[in-house]
């Protein structure tokens, strides 16, 4: 079997097992909706309607990160728990396994971003000044987040403390992505960029691209060491 075939097979297997129960998808969507409502209520608890300008953009990223932390951590834990890790090791090479898992995680996170961004921006009165910049920043951000969480979930799967450890390991590593992502999103929402120019967020897009490339390359190079023991 070729590498591409292995990777797509792992991806297809991920999608199929997820589609049987839809646990990851529904739990992350529900988590996002619950968190969104909770934050919305908390922000208006003193009866004042106005919310700071930067709030929608920042909230979007906080929500994205926390939902990823709840939804993407299971990828390798599930394999260890079910005892299927060994079978997977035998049928596909490490980089193909990582790529398939990453693709599945990325698909989940992108679906989630598409589902949560419009209601969030509507609910908190975020006005999009440059849609293509918003798309670029969110897609690249989601891919970067998915890459980091796929790698850290492989590390966490070996540990006895699984729940909280994933966020602890991933959040500090995601700082450069978060700062560039929030900056680019705010530019796309027209904050400090009233004409909605793409160039206002171009630097952030470049940072996000390089972050994603580094995260994926590093993961592909290092995954073999934790996977094949």
């Amino acid at each position, binding site marked *: 079997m070729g590498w591409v075939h292995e990777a797509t097979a792992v991806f297809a297997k991920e999608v199929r097992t997820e589609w049987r129960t839809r646990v990851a998808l529904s739990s992350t969507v529900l988590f996002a909706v619950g968190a969104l409502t909770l934050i919305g209520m908390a922000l208006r608890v003193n009866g004042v309607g106005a919310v700071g300008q930067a709030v929608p953009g920042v909230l979007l990223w906080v929500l994205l990160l926390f939902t990823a932390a709840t939804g993407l951590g299971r990828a390798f834990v599930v394999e260890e728990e079910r005892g299927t890790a060994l079978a997977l090791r035998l049928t596909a090479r490490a980089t193909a396994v990582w790529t398939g898992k990453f693709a599945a995680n990325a698909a989940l996170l992108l679906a989630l971003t598409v589902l949560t961004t419009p209601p969030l921006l509507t609910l908190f009165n975020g006005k999009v000044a440059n849609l293509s910049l918003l798309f670029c920043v969110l897609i690249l951000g989601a891919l970067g987040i998915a890459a980091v969480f796929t790698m850290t979930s492989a590390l966490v799967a070996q540990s006895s403390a699984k729940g909280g*450890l994933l966020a602890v*390991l991933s*959040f500090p*590593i995601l700082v450069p992505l978060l700062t560039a992502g929030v*900056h680019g999103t705010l530019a796309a929402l027209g904050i400090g960029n009233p004409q909605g120019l793409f160039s206002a967020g171009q*630097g952030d897009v470049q940072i996000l691209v390089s972050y994603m490339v*580094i995260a994926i390359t590093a993961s592909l190079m290092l995954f073999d*060491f934790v996977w094949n*023991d």
Partner: protein
Amino acid sequence: MTKVAKYILGLGMAGILAYIFLVLPPAQGFVAPELARIVALHLPNAMIVMVASFMAAAYGFRYLTRGRNPLDDAKSKVAAVLAMLFCLLTTVTGAFFAKVQWGAYWNWDPKQTCIFFLLLIYAAYFLLRSGIEDPEKRAAVAAVYILFAGVMTPMLGYFVPKQMPSLHPKNAGFDASYNTAIWTTTALLLGLFAWMQSLGVRSERIKLALDARDEER
């Protein structure tokens, strides 16, 4: 380390401290120029963090690629402990400086926040280690994470804060004597770091030998 080197290190340390507090001129352009001298201690600590973190990553890489020697893992761990220690010292000296010059120990300055995240990375590293029983698995997983940490150190220490507006002085009123003080302190701290590293590795070596003896019984 030889006895002579230790004496040189001790005398040098005492000398540079005396120089910083007695000879170094106050830095102009600060709220309290007299107290800005802590920069000559703060900056070298940050540089040692960089060195220690690269060393930890290098030994992690060696562990993964050169035959999984448990001693490489131990060396990587000791360097990570020291990186965390110097990271803590950088944070604390920075907080003192911030209190005097900017009015509060914590200002959410990008550099302050980023060095704190670095501290969190090392805390996460030790948490990750403590959660894995099997020594070989632990070493492999820890080595992978420490490589990520090694990439993150220059990012958080340099590139990310550069993107954001910061309170940190750019080319404030430090004269040439600050350069001398900062680089001399860095060299001395590097010596201190090497000493601490060798002490740590020696104790890890003993632990490994004891474990091996227990297994033989």
